[in-house]
């Protein structure tokens, strides 16, 4: 994905994070959000291997072999950080103590289902901590490109890949749009600059509710 698209999505995710929130950012695109937290907003990032208070990547040459995030990348600790074992880390996650988790997706559907951990017959990396994160966090945000690399919709009526969790997604942020899961269905809340509502509808298999402010 182009750097400006990544930055755009990262900035949009960051808008969802409130001062004092405890947040887990998934590997890849979601981590972009950390670069866009507004001045004066203090968000505390968890790494599910066992740390709260993750700071930015270390300067080259200052890496600590015992300081990695859940993606294996080197990290630093901010003041006020804490280390704990992985069972405690997932007690935080599963127990509903985490305000927001942001994850990528292979597919997401209009019932809030998410599929992001395997493609049968092709790739089975395992779900790692994703199932716990999606099951336990207070707010689950999916951040991804709107379509796959062949241009096919990833926002579906119903996921066809094995699920990560059922009905837990609350917000989808893509390069084209922001969509919210509501009891009424999937509501198109924002359309990115350069796109029309019709572009989004065309790139989305799921049924979309178009609110009056976008009509």
């Amino acid at each position, binding site marked *: 994905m182009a750097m400006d698209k990544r930055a755009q999505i990262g900035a949009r995710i960051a808008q969802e994070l409130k001062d004092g929130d405890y947040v887990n950012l998934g590997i890849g695109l979601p981590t972009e959000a950390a670069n866009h937290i507004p001045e004066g907003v203090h968000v505390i990032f968890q790494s599910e291997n066992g740390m709260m208070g993750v700071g930015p990547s270390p300067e080259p040459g200052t890496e600590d072999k015992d300081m990695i995030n859940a993606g294996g990348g080197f990290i630093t600790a901010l003041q006020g950080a*804490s280390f704990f074992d992985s069972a405690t880390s997932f*007690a935080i996650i599963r127990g509903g103590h985490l305000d927001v988790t942001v994850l990528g997706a292979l597919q997401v559907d209009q019932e809030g289902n998410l599929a992001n951990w395997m493609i049968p017959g092709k790739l089975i990396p395992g779900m790692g901590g994703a199932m716990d994160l999606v099951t336990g966090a207070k707010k689950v945000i999916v951040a991804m490109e709107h379509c796959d690399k062949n241009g096919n919709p990833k926002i579906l009526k119903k996921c066809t890949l094995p699920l990560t969790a059922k009905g837990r997604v609350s917000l989808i942020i893509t390069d084209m749009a922001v969509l919210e899961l509501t009891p009424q269905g999937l509501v198109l809340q924002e359309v990115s600059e350069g796109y029309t509502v019709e572009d989004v509808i065309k790139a989305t298999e799921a049924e979309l509710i178009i609110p009056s402010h976008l009509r």
Partner: protein
Amino acid sequence: MYKLITAEEAAAMIRPHSRVAIGGFLAVGAPETIIDAIVACGTKDLHIIVIASDWEKRGIGKLVVNHQVKSAQVSHMGTNKEIQAQMNSGEMAIEIVPQGTLMERVRAFGAGLGGVLTPTGLGTVVADGKQLINVDGKDYILETAIPSDFAIIRAWKADKAGNLIYRKTARNSNPIMAMAGKTTIVEVDEIVEIGELDPEQIVTPGVFVNYILLSKEA
């Protein structure tokens, strides 16, 4: 992130019929300042979740003596005649829970688990009416998570990120109760600057903490 409040504000949050998990063991590590404020408030019909019923004048015993507790989940009442009297008279409904089972059931709620399978209590009255589940040829009792609205606990020091450390055997149930409150209120002896607590040494990360107040005992 936590908010700093007074004991009176803490006590005012707790309403009749609130389920309150309270840290401490025989009143050591008990949040006495918060308990005193709840006594002053006089809020009735509380459900409490505690290891022990403490003494009449220390720890949660004060709530019992003041007739504020309608029901309790507790493992030991041997030091408090008032709770036994209220149980025998029918004023209080008591579920007696083995101490290790109590800790796991409270931890389960805090960790988002529905319960655990334990061998403790097999073949005893503790198993009565509970589902037995066999795993790998061994029987276990299905013990369900104990929900709580509030956890009120005692720590030694908090830093300004809400991270907690405890002192000696005053740690006891406090870190477990801390995980389990939908709202967790912590009484501390001291609040130190961020960075003064070693990140390796923190027992309860601030993510579990909603409110902090200073102990009047410190």
